[in-house]
């Protein structure tokens, strides 16, 4: 066993941009399987909290009960403590009932329109029993410490005079794999880092007009012409979308090999957009934790399972 080859690698991360709802970073010295696992975990397996059960006592609005329950489920809630919360299905203190403080958060909503003006019922009308779990936009308004007339919360339903809505909602921990309402990610993408080689020798044989049309052939602004030396230079390699338009252009000009573009197969550029349930940097960290837990589960599994697999594969 001593002389087995180790495939262990130590990936490196370099953060380029970090905001509450957006993050851009480089992941290097690993392969596509790692990058894709990370992306998929961020979308579907990082837990958040979302409304899962709605008990409606009065609803005389124009929307039916199911419609309102569904809309409530889709409201993003601040889920910073979701990693520490329990899933209601394996919560000991309430036998999976999903009604205790370890696995659920209760919300109350009570609204009635008494005036001639239409009443907008929004996420700001949802009252949480736990101040850590509130609708994302409500938290945002609280943080910015000012009332913004354009920021009135997420609209749930509109009521006219005499209509009323009264309900109790239970929010639970869950993952995006079960229902997209639990996904903390708006979008997560990664791309291979492009490596662009310009054949300078061949480039010299081009006229200025030809260089210009080559630069313009790329649908995104990847190349430009240096105003001093009149040479074609790479302006923004990452703007390249692997459309191969410049390569086709070079071929049509009778100069194959003028530009060569390869994807670096061990370098990835990630962009992460968060719904606000979890801050984007925390989302990445939580995803790595979830991935680690999954690997631990494999490692701690009975070795007999692998022996069985060996027998199948080796046929000994």
């Amino acid at each position: 066993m001593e002389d087995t080859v180790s495939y262990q690698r130590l990936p490196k991360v370099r953060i380029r941009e970090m905001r509450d709802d957006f993050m851009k970073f480089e992941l290097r010295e690993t392969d596509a399987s790692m990058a894709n696992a990370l992306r998929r975990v961020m979308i579907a397996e990082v837990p958040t909290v979302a409304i899962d059960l709605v008990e409606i006592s009065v609803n005389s609005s124009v929307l039916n009960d199911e419609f309102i329950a569904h809309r409530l489920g889709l409201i993003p809630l601040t889920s910073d403590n979701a990693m520490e919360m329990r899933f209601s299905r394996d919560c000991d203190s309430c036998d999976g009932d999903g009604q205790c403080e370890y696995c659920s958060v209760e919300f109350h909503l009570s609204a009635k329109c008494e005036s001639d003006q239409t009443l907008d019922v929004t996420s700001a009308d949802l009252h949480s029993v736990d101040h850590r779990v509130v609708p994302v936009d409500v938290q945002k308004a609280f943080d910015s410490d000012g009332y913004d007339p354009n920021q009135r919360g997420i609209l749930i339903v509109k009521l006219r005079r005499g209509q009323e809505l009264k309900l109790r909602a239970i929010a639970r921990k869950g993952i995006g794999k079960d229902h997209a309402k639990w996904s903390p990610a708006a979008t997560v993408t990664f791309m291979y880092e492009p490596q662009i080689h310009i054949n300078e020798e061949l480039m010299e044989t081009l006229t200025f007009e030809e260089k210009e049309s080559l630069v313009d052939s790329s649908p995104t602004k990847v190349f430009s012409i240096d105003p001093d030396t009149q040479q074609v230079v790479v302006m923004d390699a990452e703007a390249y979308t692997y459309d191969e338009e410049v390569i086709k252009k070079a071929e049509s000009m009778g100069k194959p090999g003028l530009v060569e573009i390869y994807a670096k197969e061990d370098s990835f550029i990630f962009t992460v957009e968060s719904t606000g349930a979890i801050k984007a940097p925390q989302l990445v960290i939580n995803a790595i934790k979830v991935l680690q837990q999954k690997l631990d589960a494999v490692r701690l599994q009975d070795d007999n399972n692998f022996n069985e697999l060996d027998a199948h594969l080796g046929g000994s």
Partner: protein
Amino acid sequence: MDPQQPEPVVYLCGDCGAECPLKSGDVIQCRDCGYRILYKKRTRRIVQYEAR
């Protein structure tokens, strides 16, 4: 509930909006205006839904 004494169910008239309690076997007709389309009221009970 006692099956011997069925509680009358209150309906709403589709025309005049008056309340109209009906028992089993009654003619489906509004007592005030004679309109024959009646609407059932929403339950007074709390109803539970999964937000999915």
